[in-house]
């Protein structure tokens, strides 16, 4: 049975491009399930594909002491959505490093729900968006800490760079905490390129377009520092930046 088609009234679909979603909904209605057993590790790199509309809907279950690290580049020409629902058992560790890179009328979004079920878990979500034209880039991230999940360490860092006045960044970190001994930090900034950094690069000989591209590269590329084999996602991100700048 197919799940009901979402509406904008549902918080997690609030910024979605539902018109673009409609024709392909059938194939994405059911999320993919991934399980990482106790003490095991998973590293995934999610590269963009050629389709106008690209969705990933993943339910991820982390056993005791399990580790998952996901690197994701979201740069669909029309609508891209990366949706992750994670549950962390005791001592589990979840990291997400993601970029929205968009131009034109595109909408790209990360929607996460991180549930700390057991104690001593750690989650870290770092999202960077580079948006030009009338593009929309969003992050809706919910962190739930269950009653028994003491000593949870949850972090959300979200930054967006808007290259055009028509571009939009949405950022909604949300915390729901039912334990009293936890550490949950979140920070968000939306900005433009620093004019002094641009001038510094230009004064050294870079033309304005190259200087902008280099500064944006610095803004995004730090995401992939800890990946085991970052070459493919680095190249894809560079390519996406060249396209939108």
């Amino acid at each position: 049975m197919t799940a009901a088609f979402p509406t904008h009234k549902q918080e997690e679909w609030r910024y979605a491009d539902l018109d673009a979603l409609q024709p392909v909904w059938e194939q994405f209605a059911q999320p993919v399930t991934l399980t990482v057993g106790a003490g095991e590790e998973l590293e995934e790199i999610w590269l963009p594909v050629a389709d106008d509309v690209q969705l990933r809907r993943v339910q991820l279950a982390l056993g005791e002491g399990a580790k998952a690290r996901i690197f994701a580049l979201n740069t669909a020409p029309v609508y891209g959505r990366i949706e992750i629902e994670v549950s962390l058992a005791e001592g589990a560790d979840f990291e997400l490093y993601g970029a929205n890179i968009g131009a034109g009328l595109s909408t790209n979004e990360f929607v996460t729900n991180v549930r700390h079920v057991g104690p001593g878990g750690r989650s870290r979500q770092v999202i960077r968006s580079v948006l030009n034209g009338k593009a929309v880039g969003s992050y809706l991230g919910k962190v739930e800490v269950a009653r028994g999940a003491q000593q949870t360490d949850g972090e959300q860092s979200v930054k967006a760079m808007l290259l055009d006045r028509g571009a939009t960044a949405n950022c909604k970190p949300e915390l729901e905490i039912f334990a009293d001994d936890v550490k949950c930090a979140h920070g968000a900034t939306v900005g433009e390129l620093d004019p002094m950094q641009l001038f510094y690069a230009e004064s050294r000989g870079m033309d304005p377009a190259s200087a902008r591209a280099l500064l944006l590269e610095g803004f995004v590329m730090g995401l992939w520092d800890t990946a085991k084999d970052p070459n493919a996602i680095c190249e894809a991100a560079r390519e996406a930046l060249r396209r939108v700048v």
Partner: protein
Amino acid sequence: MLEIINLHATVADKPILNGVSLHVPAGEVHAIMGPNGSGKSTLAYVLAGRPGYEVTQGSVTFTPTRHSGLEPGPAFSSEGAEGRQIPGRARDDEGGLDLLAMEPHERAAAGLFLGFQYPVEIPGISYLQFLRESLNSQRRFRGEAELSAGEFIKLAREQANLLGMDADMLKRPVNVGFSGGEKKRAEMVQMGIMAPKFAVLDETDSGLDIDALKAVGAGINRIMRAPDKGVLLITHYQRLLDYVEPDRVHVLRNGRIERSGGPELARELEREGYTEAAA
């Protein structure tokens, strides 16, 4: 080599430069001294083309002389088959460029270098990547071959060693976590790599201890003391001028050159202060 005539400039509609005239011939080092707020840094930024620094009157003509050495090639001759024009920029009879009509990156490619008073931090980009991209952008603009990664790293290491800087620092993000002195040293390493024709050095001596001051002074002499190069050295103090002997010293005050003289003028200013010396 650098001819500034009656230069007026405003920042946020406030007049800062009120008719600066100055001529630095090739082969000379000129020092600009002056009290806080006299317009020294504004002059440096106007010469490099910082956005927001509006020139309301006057002209600046930059005449890069023909390179006399063997490398990196004769990029700036105004005649001859191997010479290349800066695209889209007219030159006068002596090959002078209308500096104020050029974009900041075009000024750099033409051979102008600004040493920043406050070098800028750029997280996420290593110094090596930043400088290689900068140098190769300049070389592309001049129609010269780009340096390969290997060639560039060799050049960068050489220049870092000459300035007494650990070359591994160039692997770090641009100026991030550098001390004030390290940033200034790094500016001089950049100058060594770019090998400019003309350098405007804005308080390169501030924030330096004695050893760093000596190293930076030696760097300026080594890189820029040549018959076909020129330097405008902006400073508050005499002490850098003990290491880099200026040919001329100018006092900038209220946005104008108030006095000019030989190296002895700097010592007089140091002794008597700007107010006394001006009287």
